[in-house]
């Protein structure tokens, strides 16, 4: 019996005639940070959507805590989704709600907390994530970095066991990127969640990762510790490392 919290077994996903994931096998261990890396259109975000049950695989199995997510009905899916928190690429805040209501939404819809308890928890989270004073603003009035913080605050409300980050720093300047990674460190230390990060921002996320998954052409070409990936002699991985991390990090230079 595997101890993996998320397991992809021989997963295939096609969109029309295009194969997005080609017999992918993957195990994500609890409490670890796994980075899914790869170029654009290599199936990284599709992998996240499959894990969340937003898409169904054409074949293969996706197990979350040992349960096959693709075979679940709507009610079971809702149950299992309550262990997830998701920070979407564009933050996906409801644009008709202000910051406070966006962060309070999961509490109002998924818990039996009364109005005061909800308010207290939301205010605490806003305080922790540096969002005090912005609670009346609407998403359209926020900067990209601020939206990510609100998205993270909302995702953490139900204290998820697994946090999924879809390109968490896309479109942010280096300063804001650093802020998001600091928040990631702080919140992971506090909530002790298993993190799955999909990112293009390879040099930076390699510092966060316990394990790195490299997808290329829909196939899983590497699944190892970041330092092993950087030193790999496999040509596909070498070219990926070269392309994403620059020549400085390449194994041949380190010998």
């Amino acid at each position, binding site marked *: 019996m595997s101890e993996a919290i998320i397991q992809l077994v021989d997963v295939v996903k096609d969109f029309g005639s295009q194969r997005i994931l080609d017999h992918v096998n993957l195990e994500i261990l609890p409490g670890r940070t796994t980075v899914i890396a790869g170029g654009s259109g290599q199936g990284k975000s599709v992998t996240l959507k499959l894990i*969340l049950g*937003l898409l169904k695989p054409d074949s293969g199995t996706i197990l979350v805590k040992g349960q096959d997510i693709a075979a679940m009905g709507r009610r079971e*899916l809702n*149950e299992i*989704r309550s262990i997830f928190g*998701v920070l979407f690429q564009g933050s*996906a805040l*409801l*644009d008709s709600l202000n910051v406070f209501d966006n962060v309070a939404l999961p509490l109002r819809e*998924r818990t039996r907390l009364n109005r005061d308890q909800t308010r207290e928890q939301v205010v605490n989270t806003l305080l922790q994530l540096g969002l005090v004073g912005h609670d009346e603003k609407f998403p359209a009035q926020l900067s990209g970095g601020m939206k990510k913080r609100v998205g993270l605050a909302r995702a953490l409300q139900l204290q998820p066991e697994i946090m999924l980050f879809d390109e968490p720093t896309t479109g942010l300047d280096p300063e804001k990127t650093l802020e998001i990674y600091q928040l990631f460190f702080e919140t992971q230390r506090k909530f002790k969640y298993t993190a799955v990060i999909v990112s293009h921002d390879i040099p930076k996320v390699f510092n966060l990762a316990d394990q790195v998954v490299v997808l290329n052409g829909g196939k899983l070409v590497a699944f190892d510790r970041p330092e092993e990936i950087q030193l790999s002699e496999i040509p596909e991985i070498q070219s990926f490392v070269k392309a994403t991390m620059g020549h400085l990090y390449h194994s041949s230079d380190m010998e």
Partner: protein
Amino acid sequence: MIFKFIENLGDRALYNLNDLGRMGIFMLRSLSGIFKRPFRFRAVVRQIREIGANSFGVIFFTAIFTGMVLGLQGYYTLRKFGSEGMLGSAVSLSLLREMGPVLTALMVTGRAGSAMCAEIGIMRNSEQIDALECMAIDPFRYLITPKFIAILISVPLLTMIFNVVGIFGGYLAGVKMLGVNPGAFFSGMESSVVNKDISMGIIKSLVFAVLIVWICTGRGYFVDKIEGAGYGAEGVSRVTTQAVVLSSISILIWDYILTAMLL
């Protein structure tokens, strides 16, 4: 050549069947949300304001000028037969049975239906609907069902308002401008309008309301699955146009079907 044609025809048929099935399930899930607790009272009231109250101006102006045109046209037609006194009857029956429900539905489609489609489409494209699903919040109950309930309340009420304002428009044109006897205008109306005419209008407005909300929200919800719609803002704008056209045509087709059934 012929095989390619048959293949394309088959692809098209399968796509349409798939689309119809998807829209059918969409309708069932939206309606089932009505019976799920807790009832989203505030969201429904907000939607009634959006769909109903904010459409009042459009409905008022459409109704008054439609009524005035009916008054003018009716007067000159009836005068040929020396029956100007029947003007009240002609205006009110035209409005209650046909013009009221149809024009109200078309106006609501143009004003609120397009807005609903664009709103849901943008939410789909910006992953807001995915975010709801990930938080285990049913997007149907949260987003779509309040619109269903609100439009089922708003459209029949707007139709009633349309009818009253339209009859007043006919009165202005016929009685105040062209000199038809007011007593004849109202007595003609009273003697010819029966309950069935009013209930026919209400039934039509309810069916049209369902068509508008189903097509407009459904097209927006599946913006990413509609063939040839494209992506992003362009996709949403194309699907919104498609939704308005499809709703309008459906309203006119169902108007004929309902008239044939109810007359």
